[in-house]
Structure formats: structure tokens, C-alpha cells
């Protein structure tokens, strides 16, 4: 019960780390190690012989117990995303695919229609499909029905650091879903990741908040602790809210004075 199940895979870590925007490959690798993440995202890009050091496959494959989840970033249509998924599976040997289709570079909001079409195809091809979606409970349910292994609603716009601005919608998605709900995008601080886990998310995906921190490895470690704390707190059972004070110390028999 303490492991995260995605398709036929199980993970003890509930923090999924993105590998973009780090100042160097070594900073990224240190952060991945510090995060104890077992699932990390990568993006497919054209090989450039002048920048061969940009290739992350080698460095990431040296970390034991790590599974790659390629994303389809760059795809603007379902067709492009499916093509990227096929190439990524060939390269990674991993069945995981983060379906990410955002045609507008200004807001990077996922296209729900193309995302749905791509997921339908990829789920039928036995990928472990992890779609990045707007926080829409109806879409989330439809994606569950076509065989996605999770849904990943955005907390706020990619890289914005605006936190869990979609919290109320994410709560509805969690209530209605039979597959893991993972908040992906927009988180800025470990407390927000903790809140997402307390709310009932099965994992969180973080990239920018770690990558652009002054000390990415320390921030990765902080996120890992927050995710674990939030998960433990949810399982421990949060106390109910009350509209008024409820005393935690006895209010009678104070120093023998009768009142």
C-alpha cells in the first residue's frame, strides 16, 4: 500500500522529477540523486554533434533503479505525439510516456482534444500513458476510460511557480478517479507538494522549482521530504475542521479553584 503503482511498475518514491532547465548535467544528476526519484522525465531532441554533452541517456543510466518517462513536448497534434512516443520507446526501452501536447508557446496549456486522441492510441499500444492535462474532471475520467495509467492535471501554468491554483478541480478529479492523480506543473515550494499529497494525489511531478533553485540538490531533497510528509499525513488521517475553538487542555479543576 506504500508503493505507487503505475501500470505493472511499482515505485517507493512519489516524487517524479523533470530534468529540464538545470544549469548543467552534473547539477541535474545531483538533484535526481538527492530527490530519490525513481521516475524522471526527459525530452526527445535532434542530435547535435556540437553539443553531444546535452545527451542525458548516458548520465541517467548510471543511476540505479531509475526509469525514464519521455515526454512528447514539442508535439502540437496527436499524430506528432504518437510519433514521438514510438521513437522515445525505441530509445528509452521504457513503456512510460508523458503525453504533453501544448500548441501555444505563450501559455503552454495542454490541448485536451489532441491529448485524448493520442492517449487512446498509445494506451492501445501498451504504453504506460501519463497525460499532462488541464484540471478537468470530465477529461480525466475519459482518459481513465481509454486506459491511461494516471492523469496529471496541472497545478498552474508550466514553469510559473503559481502553485496549486487548480486545487478545487484537482480534488474533484481525485474523488472521481480510480487511477493515480499526479499534480504536474506550476509547483514552487515543497509545502505545495505536501498539500497536493495531503489532498490525495498519489505523486507530484516537479521540475522548474528544483532546477532553478540556488541549490537544486537541497531543494530536491526538501521536495522529497515534503511529498513523504504529505503522503504520511493523509494516511494518518487529518483531523476535521471546526468552525470554533475546541480546547486541547482541560478547562475545569484549574489549581483547585472552583468556578
Amino acid at each position, binding site marked *: 500500500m506504500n508503493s505507487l503503482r503505475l501500470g505493472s511498475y511499482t515505485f517507493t518514491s512519489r516524487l517524479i522529477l*523533470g*530534468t*529540464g*532547465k*538545470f544549469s548543467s548535467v552534473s547539477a*541535474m544528476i545531483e538533484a535526481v540523486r538527492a530527490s530519490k526519484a525513481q521516475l524522471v*522525465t*526527459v*525530452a*526527445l*531532441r*535532434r*542530435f*547535435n*554533434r556540437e553539443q*553531444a554533452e*546535452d*545527451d*542525458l*541517456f*548516458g548520465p*541517467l543510466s548510471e543511476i540505479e533503479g531509475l526509469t*525514464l518517462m*519521455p*515526454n512528447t*513536448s514539442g508535439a502540437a497534434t496527436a499524430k506528432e505525439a504518437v*510519433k514521438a512516443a*514510438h*521513437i*522515445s520507446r*525505441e*530509445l*528509452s526501452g521504457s513503456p512510460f510516456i508523458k503525453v504533453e501536447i501544448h500548441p501555444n508557446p505563450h501559455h503552454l496549456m495542454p490541448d485536451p482534444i489532441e491529448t485524448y486522441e493520442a492517449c487512446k492510441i498509445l494506451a492501445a499500444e501498451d504504453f504506460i500513458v501519463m497525460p499532462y492535462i488541464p484540471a478537468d474532471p470530465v477529461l480525466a475520467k475519459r482518459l481513465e476510460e481509454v486506459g491511461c495509467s494516471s492523469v496529471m492535471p496541472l497545478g498552474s501554468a*508550466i*514553469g510559473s511557480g503559481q502553485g496549486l491554483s487548480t486545487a478545487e478541480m484537482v480534488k474533484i478529479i481525485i474523488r472521481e478517479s480510480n487511477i493515480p492523480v499526479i499534480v504536474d*506543473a506550476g509547483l514552487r515550494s515543497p509545502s505545495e507538494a505536501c498539500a497536493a499529497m495531503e489532498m490525495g494525489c498519489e505523486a507530484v*511531478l516537479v*521540475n*522548474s522549482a528544483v532546477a532553478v533553485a540556488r541549490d537544486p540538490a537541497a531543494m530536491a531533497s526538501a521536495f522529497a521530504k515534503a511529498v513523504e510528509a504529505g503522503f504520511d499525513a493523509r494516511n494518518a488521517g487529518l483531523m476535521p475542521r471546526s468552525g470554533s475553538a475546541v480546547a486541547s487542555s482541560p478547562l475545569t479543576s484549574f489549581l483547585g479553584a472552583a468556578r
Partner: protein
Amino acid sequence: MSTIHITLNGEKRELPSGSSVADLLKLECAESQKVAVVVNENIVRPDKRESAVLQENDQVEILVFAGGG
């Protein structure tokens, strides 16, 4: 020596006739790392790269994993 013309990652390239995908990877210094190769929309797996001979006007993509969220 006769040559062929291909498009590699969006750029025009000239290669000796009879070049295979494996030859191209050596030429690009990409033979020692893990890459995906797509020729005219078809993925060419590692065990087929020696025998896959490139043709005039082939569209070739060599891809790797970069950082991404």
C-alpha cells in the same frame, strides 16, 4: 566517387553512394552513444543500421534525450 543527397535533422548533406545508416552515425560521431534514427518516418533499429543503405533524398532524423519536464 558518386554521391547522394539526404536531409539530416533538417539540413542538406552529401554522402558517398552506398552509405549505410551506420556509416552516417560514424560520420556524425554519434556511433558511441544511444540515439534513435528515423529514415523517412520509419525507425531504424540498431541491428538494422549496417544494412540500411541510404538513398537519394532520404529524410533522416537522429534523436537523443535532452532535459525536459
